[in-house]
């Protein structure tokens, strides 16, 4: 029975290790996502239509390319469903906060009387995404380290 106990312990460690090593979003992706998304928002205020389309498309392609590079570098696409709950809560929290923040910015930009609303909106978007990204990244790393310690994994 000791063999079976060791087998189960190894399974639990291997499952956890996926999220400790590959689970978090790289900092440069958050930053790039913030810059490109901010540019896409600002492009809505550009009056020359073709230039606005070029800026928005460039931003979209940049976000897609960065996602591709991040996945290739990690060599893994972790599943959210099997992620340990303390880590999953951080990621979901990030998406909720960023989603609500971005929605509020968009509503404001479309309804405000301020001059150049989309330039402001782009800047605000950048701040929200960078702040939410860095706070959630810090929380993710702290919780991952705690889980690694509990499981006796060295390189958490």
């Amino acid at each position, binding site marked *: 029975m000791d063999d079976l106990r060791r087998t189960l312990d190894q399974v639990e460690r291997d499952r956890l290790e996926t999220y400790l090593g590959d689970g978090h979003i790289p900092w440069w992706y958050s930053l790039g996502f913030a810059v490109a998304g901010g540019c896409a928002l600002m492009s809505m205020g550009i009056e020359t239509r073709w230039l606005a389309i070029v800026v928005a498309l460039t931003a979209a392609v940049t976000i897609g390319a960065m996602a591709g590079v991040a996945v290739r570098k990690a*060599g893994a696409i972790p599943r959210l469903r099997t992620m340990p709950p303390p880590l999953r809560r951080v990621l979901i929290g990030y998406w909720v906060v960023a989603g609500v923040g971005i929605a509020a910015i968009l509503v404001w930009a479309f309804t405000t009387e301020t001059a150049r609303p989309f330039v402001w909106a782009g800047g605000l978007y950048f701040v929200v995404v960078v702040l939410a990204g860095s706070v959630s990244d810090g929380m993710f790393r702290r919780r991952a380290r705690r889980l690694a310690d509990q499981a006796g994994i060295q390189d958490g």
Partner: protein
Amino acid sequence: MDDLDPLIHAPKRLRIMTVLSTAEVEFSRLQERLDLSAPDLSKQMRQLIDAGYVEARKTGKGPGSTTWYKLTRQGRRAFDDYLDRLRRLLDEASVS
């Protein structure tokens, strides 16, 4: 012990199945995580693919191409079932 799927219960394949139960993983990353040689990993993967537990996806062409692996629905069911049986065996042993 006889209840446990022998294909999954082998130590190397169990670790492969465990990692793939949490992520879709690229060949060299899997090799690095499990500390297996490329031929050994290929051999284990072939058995899991033949059993219908794992599926492979190639990306890119030529020398830069990579292969990604993930569990199939059947593989996920088999792995969950394996873990349930393993836990049940341990529970029974601790009661008796």
